[in-house]
């Protein structure tokens, strides 16, 4: 089996990823439907959106706790440790690669290894999403589900209002992340290669 490539994504990670991806896609769709709903053109009936959004929200929140714990106690944790030395340079290098080098067929500046599976841009975006925006959206989401937990006033603004705006902003950045994430995952020998990795767990070595 091992000649198939690097085994990068353990089972728990793949299961979490699948559940999380499905949940987040439902959340984004129903969230947009509620926020931009219009009586004449509802994307989905409001009630249905609320129900799906609540259920997926709870699933993704539990998933997040599982992820945080599993990630903390497994080998995977080291992938999420930021390395500040030469940070700007490495980010530039990877960006230059995506914009120019990749088209010229240059080798990848940060080849994937078992110890270092993310390139600098991936690490930056995964850390920001998994340790800033997802927790933010989970906490604000719980607050909106149980409004009695929220302070009634923050900065002269309704507490619910304040939390809701944070929730929407976090949702926005996660949606943005998802689009870029999906696109960047398609960059490889074949556009679908990486997608199969996150399902099988194996990353083919001559790729990405």
């Amino acid at each position: 089996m091992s000649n198939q490539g690097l085994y990068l994504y353990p089972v728990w990670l793949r299961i979490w990823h699948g559940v999380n991806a499905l949940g987040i896609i439902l959340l984004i769709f129903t969230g947009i439907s509620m926020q931009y709903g219009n009586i004449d053109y509802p994307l989905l009936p409001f009630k249905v959106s609320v129900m799906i959004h609540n259920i997926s929200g709870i699933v993704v929140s539990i998933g997040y706790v599982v992820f945080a714990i599993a990630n903390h106690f497994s080998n995977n944790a080291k992938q999420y440790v930021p390395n500040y030395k030469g940070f700007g340079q490495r980010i530039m290098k990877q960006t230059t690669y995506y914009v120019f080098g990749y088209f010229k067929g240059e080798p990848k500046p940060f080849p994937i290894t078992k110890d270092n599976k993310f390139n600098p841009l991936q690490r930056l975006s995964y850390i920001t999403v998994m340790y800033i925006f997802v927790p933010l959206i989970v906490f604000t989401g719980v607050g909106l589900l149980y409004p009695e937990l929220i302070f009634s006033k923050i900065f002269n603004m309704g507490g619910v209002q304040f939390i809701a705006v944070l929730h929407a902003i976090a949702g926005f950045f996660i949606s943005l992340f998802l689009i870029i994430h999906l696109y960047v995952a398609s960059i490889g020998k074949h556009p679908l290669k990486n997608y199969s990795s996150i399902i099988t767990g194996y990353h083919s070595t001559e790729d990405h």
Partner: protein
Amino acid sequence: MLLFSTVNIMAQDEGNPLSENSQVCARCHGNKYYTFHNEVTGTEVRKRMNPYLLIDTVKYTQATHSFFSCDDCHSPDYAVYPHASNLKLDPKPSCIDCHGGDESFAKYQFDDIDVEVQNSVHKIAHGEQFKCEMCHDLHSYRLVARNENSKIKDIVVQDNQMCLSCHNNLTKYQILTDNQKPEILATHDWLPNQELHFLNVRCIECHTPITDTLMVSHKILPKEQAVHLCSDCHSTNSILRSKLYKYTVMESRTDQGYYNSVILNEAYVIGANRNKYLNILSLAIFGLTLLGISIHTITRIINKK
């Protein structure tokens, strides 16, 4: 149940102290116990006041009609106790008796309201039995909604209390009918976050039609015609703009985009609040991202050939 307990509406600066004449009545009607001199036995008697005849004097002094003495509306003969039995037959003045056709109250449109009440489910079912006072208790009613200083939540509490004083009170309900009283909490269990809703929207939001000519529609519709669609409120063209938030919406500037001050400060209605600037910013960022991705994709395709 907390929800349905009477919440004391914030004390208001206006209002009038009890007049001397009123204090005579309040000595008995303002207390749980009253005493009187029994002339036959020659003794002082202390008895319980019938709770339905109890007047809350604190609320009375804050009410819109607090400048009246009791005997302006009730016969002065009530000052004597035991009250003469024929006083029971005295007609009591109705809102329309005092306000109907009066120019100085034109902005409240009493006569139009009267017509709407005539067409509401209550009048249709119970005719003369159902009076304005069933909702507007003259001894406590305050004009909350029109008051600029009122908070939305205070308006909601007072107005819902009008309905719940009966729909959540079997004794009052049964003055009108022996029919089974529907349990409000059970008949509205389709509404999620019910408690939150009942503290933030009024019953009349869902149970009356939208009207442009009146501040408050009084035409309670049959239950089949009540608002059932969440998006009637949870959308940009929310009905709340022409109902509960009418008072503030009329005052606030119209150029505030999606936001208006009411919604911003007092309630968050998913779908009805949107921030214009955040919207533009987010569209711009999404646009740039998609543009970047498209350019990259096109270059990839060209490169492949």
